[in-house]
Each structure stands twice: as C-alpha cells, then as structure tokens.
C-alpha cells in the first residue's frame, strides 16, 4: 500500500494506483472528460490536471508515490483546466436545450466546475463551423459539433466489442472521430451495438428520436440465448428504450444492436390483440370464450375419434419457462407425449 495526501486528506491505496483512483477512494472530485472506468486510460483531455509534489500532472495517469502531496485546486491546475474547457466550448454547439444530453453532459459539468462566466463565453464563442451531422445510422447520429475528442467512443469500440470501427482522423484543429476511410457510419464496419453512444459524455453520439422513459423495469433480453440483463424503459404503454444492466454477470451492461434497438415489435400495430377463428376460409375476430370453447371441443372430438396420439403440441423456446411447463402439463395430461419445440432449429 502507498500512502499519500490529497488536500491534506490521508489516503492509502494499492501500489500502481493513480492519483485519480486515490481521490475517488476518499470521495474527492477531480474533473475529467476522457476517463471512463471500463476503459484504458487515455490522458488526452488534460482536465484532470492536479499539482503533485509541486508539479502539474494528469491525475488519471500519474501513479501515486509514498508521501505524495497532492493539491487539487492549485492555481496552475486551475489555469490549465479553464483553458482546456474554454477551447472546447469555443467550438462546441451552444444549443444545449435540443441536445439529448442536456443536464446529463460531462462538458456542462466540467464547465460548471471551472466556472465559465457569460462575459468570457461571449468573447470566446465563435459560430460553430458548418459540420454535417452523420445521420446514416438508423439508431444514432454523430454530431461532431458536440464532440470533445475524448476518444471514449474509439476506445469503447476497440476494447468493449473489439470492432474498432472508429479512430481519430485528420490533424490539428481538424481532428475528428472518423470511420475507416471517413465513410458514413452506416457504410463502415460499425455493428451498431450503440456501446459508444451509451458512453459518449456529450451529445455527439446521440440516440435518434430519443424519448426519455417514465420508468424502468429490470428484465432479460428476449432475443438470443446469451440472456443479457436489461432495463426496459417504459413511457405510457410503450417500450421506448432498452439499457444494459451493468450489474448483470452475463453482459455487464453491454448489448448488441438487436437487444438495444430491436424492441419496436412490442409496440407494433400489427400485434394480435384478439382471438381469431377461421370462418369460410377467413380469420375473423372472436371472443376468448368462443375461441377456447372451439379449441376444447375440437381437441376432445379428435381425441375421442382417433386417440390422444392424434394430437401434437409445439411449445416454444421464445416463451418463459413457466409457459413451457404448463404447456407440457396440458399436452401430457391429454394423454400424449407428442411434444417438442424448436431446440434443434
């Protein structure tokens, strides 16, 4: 263990920890834009600058040493932080109200921390250069007027799902997050999982047609056999979002394109909403009683005429375990083991 002092608070952490880790341990806030707990450290934003043993260092990269004296709010550090944030703001889209990340934005948080005055802002802000929003992906946009070049999306694509569809392109003030060959997102190798969008600290990678849910319900994804934990976002009588459950041991919050964005079927107008009975070759609406009476009487007739083995039941790998259990109970109770589901398909 290594012991150090952060603004006179004594803290002991594992050897190899950073100043940022140590500060987190004692609940001391250090602003940052490019740090993400699930990703490798980048150290690119310079916002976490602190003074350690009299020298300016980035807290997210600097390893702790025994007896180290850290001053978070040192004059030099404040200057660097303010300059970085002001430079970012000069090029940043100022329309916060229409941004999906409004009030949940890291840049707002950090700007608020360093204290940007309206006068400074008015002096600094240039109109944002015309940059086309990449709207090619059906689920999320890249709006580079809101990008702070933290690289979290790039690291997410490489470290979380291993696709590596994004990287920094161009140089100097033209630096931008791009796909290979600067193609539109939808034409790139991107697999649309949305992991980058989930981690984007600003509104640069933003969900299309976003509707904030009124409430969330913890459940399990209904697609493949991986069984990812999810939070279903509900607004009124519709599912409007799906978010990975970070506490679930299977997916640790991660999802794929189907799981995250493929929930529309739940709300779809083509859903069956009443029982149907075939009359003169046409399926027509019926009440539950009519439909179930018909099924019961036809099953009984056929069993009476041809025995229970003239009946077969196909259960479903899409339904719950409980649904399957009662289905098998019914079919077997009727006297047949002609029972299967799509396990082999």
């Amino acid at each position: 263990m290594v012991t150090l002092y952060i603004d006179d608070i004594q803290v002991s952490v594992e050897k190899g920890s950073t100043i940022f880790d140590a500060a987190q341990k004692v609940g001391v806030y250090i602003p940052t834009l490019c740090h993400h707990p699930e990703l490798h450290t980048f150290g690119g934003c310079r916002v976490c600058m602190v003074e350690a043993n009299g020298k300016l260092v980035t807290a997210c990269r600097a390893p702790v040493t025994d007896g180290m004296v850290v001053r978070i709010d040192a004059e030099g550090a404040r200057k660097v932080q303010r300059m970085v944030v002001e430079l970012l703001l000069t090029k940043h889209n100022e329309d916060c109200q229409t941004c999906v990340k409004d009030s949940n934005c890291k840049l707002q948080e950090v700007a608020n921390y360093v204290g940007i005055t309206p006068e400074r802002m008015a002096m600094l802000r240039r109109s944002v250069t015309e940059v086309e929003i990449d709207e090619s992906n059906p689920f999320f946009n890249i709006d580079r007027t809101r990008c702070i070049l933290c690289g979290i999306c790039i690291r997410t694509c490489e470290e979380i799902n291993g696709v590596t569809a994004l990287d920094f392109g161009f140089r100097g003030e033209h630096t931008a997050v791009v796909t290979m060959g600067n193609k539109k997102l939808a034409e790139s190798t991107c697999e649309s999982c949305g992991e980058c969008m989930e981690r984007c600290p600003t509104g640069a990678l933003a969900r299309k047609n976003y509707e904030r849910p009124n409430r969330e319900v913890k459940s399990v994804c209904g697609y493949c056999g991986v069984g990812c934990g999810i939070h279903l976002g509900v607004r009124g009588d519709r599912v409007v979002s799906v978010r990975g459950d970070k506490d679930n041991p299977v997916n640790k919050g991660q999802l794929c394109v189907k799981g995250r964005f493929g929930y529309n079927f739940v709300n779809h107008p083509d859903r069956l909403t009443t029982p149907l009975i075939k009359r003169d070759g046409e399926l027509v609406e019926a009440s539950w009683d009519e439909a179930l009476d018909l099924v019961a009487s036809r099953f009984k007739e056929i069993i009476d005429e041809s025995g229970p083995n003239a009946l077969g039941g196909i259960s479903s790998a899409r339904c719950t375990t409980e649904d399957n259990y009662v289905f098998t109970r019914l079919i077997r109770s009727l006297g047949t083991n002609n029972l299967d589901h799509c396990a082999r398909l």
Partner: protein
Amino acid sequence: MAGLATVLGSGAMTNTIGEVEDAKAIFVIGSNTTENHPIIGYRIRKAVKKGARLIVADPREIRLADVADVYLPLKPGTDVALINGMLHVILKEGLVDSEFIASRTEGFEDMKAAVEKYTPEYASEISGVPAEDIVRAARLYAGADSATILYTMGVTQHTSGTENVLSLANLVLATGNFGKPGAGLNPLRGQNNVQGACDMGALPGVYTGYQPVADDNARAKFEKAWCVTLPGKPGMTMTEMFHAAVEDRIRAMYIMGENPLLSDPDGGHICDCLEKMDFMVVQDIFLTETAKLADVVLPAATFAEKDGVFVNTERRVQRVCRALKPRGQSKPDWEIIQLLAQKLGYDWNYESAEQIFDEIAELTPSYAGLSYKRLEDGGIQWPCPNPEHPGTPILHVGKFSRGLGKFSAVDYRLSAEQADEEFPILLTTGRSLYHYHTGTMTRKTEGLNQFHKEELMELNPEDAKALGIGEDDIVTVTSRRGTVRSKVHVTDRIQPGVVFMTFHFAETAANLLTNSEVCHIAKTPELKVCAVRVEKA
C-alpha cells in the same frame, strides 16, 4: 444435446460465458458468434486481445476469422474428418493429458483406433482444409493450459450432428479440458429460452429436469402432482409430427410461439402438412405465416408484458419482469393455457407465474433450490439442489454426471445430399446480426431493415463468374424440394461451391430448399447442407 448427454451425462454448456475472456485458447466451430451471440463475440475478441489463441472453423470466412490465429475453411458437413484429423495430431505428438485420460475417462483405446487413419493429409482431402493448418490448430488447442470449444448449429444441424459433437467431446477429453475454468465444451444455444424449454421437458421423452417419461417413478411423481394418468411411451419430435400429419396420424396441433413454416426444413412439405391438419391452433404475438393457416389464433403477450424466467445458454435462470400490461386482449401464454385446460375440464388454479415456478422447483431436482426471491440479482446457474446451494457455474468438476467421461469411436460419413451434376452447389444457412430467426420480431424495427432488408445470398466470385452472375443480380435457387428467388452478394468470404442464405425473409424462404433428413440420434435436421442449383433469373 443428445451427444453430450451420452458422453458426459448432461447436455448443456459446461462452463460460463464470463470465462471465455480468460481462456488461453478458443476453438470456435460452426458458430458465427459475433452475429448470433454478439456479447459472447465481444468476449472472444477481448480474449484474443489478452493473448488467447483463436481457431475458427467455418465454411464461411466469418468476421471472427479476421482475428483468428488459424482459420479452417472446412467444406460443409466434414466436421468429423477435421476434428479426427486434429485428434490424430494430438495423439501422435503426445499432446494429450494422460493423467486426466487415466483417471476420468473410458474408451480411449477405441477412439485412438478410430482416429488412426485420419492423418492430416487424409483429413485435408475430405475437409478441404490445408493439412498444415490442421496440425497448427491441433497444437494451438492442445498446447494451451485451458482451451474452450464454442459451437452451435453449424455442428449440430447435420445428419451426423451427434457424431460431430462426440468427436468434439473426444478432443476435450483427450486434452483434459473439462471441469476447469476457461475450458469445456460449450454449445451456445440459439434462442432466449431454449434451455428453459428443454429443462421443462418440452421434448417427446422427458419431464422437467430430463426425468424420463418412460421411468415409472418419474411418471408416478408427475401423475400425483398433476392428478392425471400419463402415457409412458415417448412421443414424436416436431419433424416426425409433420410427417405423421400427412398420413393423418396427427390430426390436430397446438403451436405456441413458433413459425415452423419458415423455420423448419423443407417448407413446402411443412405447408402441405399444416394444410392437411384437421385442426390447428396457433398462439403468437403476430399473425405469422404459420398462424395464417390456423383454425384458431390466440393472441399472446410479449416478454415485456409478462413475468417468468428465461434460462440462458450457460444454464443461468434469470427473472423476466412485466413492464407493461398486455396489448388489447392478449394474455401471457400460461394464462391462455390455463384457460384452455379449464375448458377441457382440468381443475387448474395458478394465480401467478411465481406459483408455477414454485411447483417446477418442487418437481425438478436441478431447480429445487431456486425461487423468485433468490433470482433477483443476476440469476443462478442450475443444478441448484437446495436453497443454500449457490448454483453451479462449471459442470463436471472432479467427476462427470455419468461418472467417467466416455470417448467415442467416430467415423466420418457423407451428408445426406452431395453436390452432383443436377445440383452442383451446396447451400448452408444461418442468421445475420440484424435479424432474428423468421424475422417476425426484428423486421418490425425499421432501422434493422435498413441494414438488411432482403435476402442477399452469398456467392463466391469464382462461381459468380462461371454462372455469369454479378452483385445484386436476382437468381433462382433450386433444390430437390423447391425454388426461391434471391438477390446475390458476391463475396470471397464464402468458399467456391457453397452458397449461404439466411431464413429471415418470408419472401425468400430458404427453408423451402433445405433438407429435412435428420440426425438419427438427436433428430436434428440437416439444415446446414443441401444441394442446390443457382441460375440467373
């Protein structure tokens, strides 16, 4: 599953998804993991970044092949030859785990004799994989401290499906890769609750927890619990039921949440069977292609509208929670089944999914320790025999469910259909990242359609040139059972002589072409190989 049950004593993923990340070697065969199990695909790529060696065997150069140490482009249906070739190398080079073989297995000598003739050259001749790559793959797999095998339907959907699994099990047994972290033999199950449906005995021959219907004690237990007399003879599989329908031996069917018209092989035949049926009930969330043929259609609730559990591919029982009330008059499936049971004169009174689950736990030893309360945080992996048991992440630690692990002597045999003059190309099928099965759910999301709105049959440039077919051309694909029209995507990710189609699109129903010949043990149909002819439309 039948294969695994024979040699190990139970058929399920032996290890957990989380362990994949820490495996030292990963052998992916017959699984397009990044598209069909994307989150496990993420774990594989992460493992590779951490230094794991990756071996990928697939007729298509799937995206995982891009990051593999060895890619083995085997011809469809030649799995046993390839795996026996690897085993041959492992035995010849002494890469086996002798202590494991001696203490925990039986039948080694028989297996050894069976693989003797599968020199890398002979295996190469059959599978089309270069002999030196078979040797490399064998050394990478056997040389790792812990090696895991991940497979799916690319291995099982063959007339030799069970043999394919048995030969994989040989590989794992020979190298001692059972019962430890980062290892094992892991079938990745395709559907959200296929494990749960199997566990519940939605199969012809077993009750919950794989208790045989033919076993008098098991049957007596369920007769008592359900207050009925139960038949002791195993019933028919789905494919057998469809065949029987043609001969009038099956006259009525109750189909819940399945769309066999598109998902099952030889769709034309299935259509005939369903139309022949005297009475068919379909219970679903949409009016599927199958539902349109039904006499009665019952509207069911989606997973977002009901309570229950799903069991994932690693045997983890997890809670599904109701977020919305069911649409219109639709109802959770169990409620519909109960209403029907009451109409049929049974005295059923389940008041909640939880009450049903408690009954399942009472009747099922491997679920005995489970309850909704215990499943609140992240689920529990069965077997979980009592309320204090933490669940079982890794199977076969120290001892196999059947005692000793059994080697099998497995020989390669031909798929039911081979390419010939009339049908010179092999069709193999699968799924894409953007859609799920017959597209009933995913095609309702516009964004997913943007990425994949129609079938794009994959065709090798060599074959395309010979047939005078170009990118986006429309072709007819004909097998002995039917014809479909499809758009073409020319790509060298598919090998010459093979084409690939999904079965997501009703208008290009690939399963009109596929063969319903089944594996004689597991009864899995040979969806991964059938002979077709491709012509410019």
